[in-house]
């Protein structure tokens, strides 16, 4: 089975995308909930400096040293940002926006200057080359396995174990850092661990998808999931599901259109986000509009009930006054009336409209809530 997987470049590419998506969605869920999404953007840019520096020092393009360099670059980004914020001369958003462009610019400049012969160029840094990951392989157990798969597999395992083993601690530190601190869970250390893992994931992924698209893989799938559920466990799993589906569909679309595979995978995650934004069951735009409409109709029914009750008290039986007394258009009056009849709030009698007992109760409950018997 492994042999078939490795023999098919398409499968290797999709698997790479899926691993990038899984590894980053696992962390992204927490980054979003902690409102640190833009730190992921900052880190993924800064690791370029880490990669170039490590390459200049060791001439190693991938592997453990690179992961370490990335972790250091990530920590440096976060630490520098915090340092700037703590001087209280710069707000935190501007601090992020100062640190990562500077580190990234330095990295790109060093690439320009020294690293002409290395395979890492500006183009790869930004856009990634997921289409070529199957070309660079290393021998493992007698198979030629693409390096990207090995490292991404490792990183995914690490991230999954981190989230699985420290789930309770992460959850607490995310939703109630003060309590986590009081209980002795060291939320600051957890937060740093999360950001270090983000850097490591970024460096394992950047060859495949580049630094900017990596941000899409980290943030967008969990963001889509966040719009669909209230539970953290489900949010993480849904995020992974979105990432997996996006990798596969993105690959198919990219091949069909002959465009960037990584880019297309990211675009598909965006489609999922759009779908969740529009059609999410509870927080979706459509659901929200429908709810608003129902609420308005409900309010109008009550208004009608109150209107009828007032008329009743004055001994009138109105039909016309719906458009006069309440200043409703005919269409609106008809709609509200239909809704009221459906709920059994009004009935027709010989003289015109009248309240049912239920309708009278509803109107009284609104007008004189203190008289309504509890229960």
């Amino acid at each position, binding site marked *: 089975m492994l042999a078939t997987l490795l023999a098919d470049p398409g499968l290797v590419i999709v698997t790479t995308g899926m691993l990038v998506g899984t590894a980053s969605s696992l962390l992204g869920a927490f980054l979003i909930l902690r409102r640190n999404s833009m730190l992921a953007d900052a880190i993924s840019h800064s690791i370029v400096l880490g990669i170039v520096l490590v390459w200049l020092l060791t001439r190693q393009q991938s592997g453990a040293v690179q992961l370490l360099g990335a972790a250091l670059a990530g920590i440096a980004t976060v630490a520098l940002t915090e340092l700037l914020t703590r001087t209280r001369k710069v707000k935190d958003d501007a601090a992020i926006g100062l640190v990562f462009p*500077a580190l990234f610019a330095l990295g790109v400049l060093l690439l320009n200057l020294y690293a002409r012969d290395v395979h890492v160029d500006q183009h790869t840094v930004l856009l990634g080359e997921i289409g070529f990951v199957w070309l660079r392989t290393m021998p493992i157990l007698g198979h030629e396995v693409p390096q990207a798969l090995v490292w991404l597999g490792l990183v995914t395992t690490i991230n999954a174990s981190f989230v699985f083993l420290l789930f309770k601690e992460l959850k607490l530190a995310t939703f109630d850092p003060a309590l986590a601190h009081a209980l002795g869970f060291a939320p600051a250390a957890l937060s740093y661990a999360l950001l270090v893992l983000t850097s490591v994931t970024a460096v394992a992924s950047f060859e495949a998808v580049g630094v900017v698209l990596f941000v*899409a893989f980290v943030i967008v799938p969990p963001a889509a999931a966040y719009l669909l559920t209230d539970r953290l466990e489900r949010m993480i799993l849904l995020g992974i599901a979105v990432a997996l589906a996006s990798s596969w569909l993105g690959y198919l679309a990219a091949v069909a259109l*002959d465009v960037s595979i990584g880019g297309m995978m990211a675009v598909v995650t965006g489609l999922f986000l759009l779908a969740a934004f529009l059609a999410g069951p509870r927080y979706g735009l459509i659901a929200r509009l429908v709810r608003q409409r129902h609420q308005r109709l409900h309010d109008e029914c009550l208004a009608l009930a109150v209107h009828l009750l007032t008329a009743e008290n004055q001994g009138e039986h109105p039909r016309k006054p719906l458009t006069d007394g309440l200043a409703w258009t005919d269409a609106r009056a008809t709609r509200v009336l239909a809704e009221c009849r459906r709920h059994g709030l009004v009935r027709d009698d010989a003289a015109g409209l009248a309240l049912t007992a239920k309708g009278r109760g509803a109107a009284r409950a609104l007008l004189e809530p203190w008289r309504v018997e509890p229960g």
Partner: protein
Amino acid sequence: MPLAVWLADHTIQNVVAGAVLLGLVSGVLGSFAVLRQQSLLGDTLAHAALPGICLGFLLAGSRELGVLAGGALLTATLAALAVQALVRFSRLKTDAALGSVLSLFFAVGVVLLTFIQGRADAAQGGLESFLFGQAAATLRSDLWLMGGVTAMALFLVTLFWKELKLVTFDPLFAASVGYPVALLETGLTALIALAVVVGLQMVGVVLMAAMVIAPPVAARQWTRRLEPMVALAGLFGVAAGVSGALISATTPGLATGPLVVLAASAIVLASLLLAPERGLLWEALKRRRDRRALADERLLATLYGLARRHHDPRYPAEQGMLDAYHGVGTRRVLARLAGLGMVRRVVHMPNEGAHWELTEAGQRRARADLSRAEAD
């Protein structure tokens, strides 16, 4: 190359002019973004210009900057609207909305870029230079466009100066006195999109964010008023732009964006450290001075108190006892005070540690400090 020849060079002239325009517009408009804590919006808008550039290219079929800039403006504005929609109509917070829109618009740009490169027709070269900027590729005709956009942006800022200032510092008050706050905020965002468009050629979409953020942050260090801050931000932007662009244009193979951004970062660093009043260096020095003055005062007060209790103005206090009084080593403070002539080392008993007594000057100073403390 002699300076005169160098300056007469057309490329150099274009590059300098472009850099001046870029620095000016991004510094001025960035000031409002930074003050309103929307620094990262610039990042999102800049990345979102990429699909617009590609669309413009597909439409025009050539690298006509006017069309590309129009496309960039369109998609950048769309991105701003998308961020606003996500924040208002979904439960996503600003950071997640910014990150999603940034990466997704960029992804669409990447897809379009590869789509363009995959087509057989020529003239697709050079679009990638918009990623990191290529100052040397600036043409005279581009300058007219950049100049026009800059002039328009600056004109609008001048025209609506009072409104923009109020919306920046007190949007609630602005709304309560009847200013169209939402409209003005949208307008400011659109202006940032304009700044991004000017920067496309010089800095590129990836690093443009820094040009919107760094000059205003540096300028803020030097002044507490909006007018000089905006002017300084423009000036810093121009300085960073010109120095970066010149290095890039004269050294083959160096992209402009990183150089300009590094120049801007250097200006920020210098301003953070050295600006009068708000400079971190001065603050650190002042803290050190204050700490020393306090330590001096406390030690003199201790010695004076001991002298009074023993009815001996020249009571020799043992150094170990002073350490115990203050809970810290007093050796350095004593040495400094001795240097100032406030205390004097004396031999009290031969086999014991060092002893110190107040001099006349020390007694006067301690009395003055004490009476001042009582008066307060």
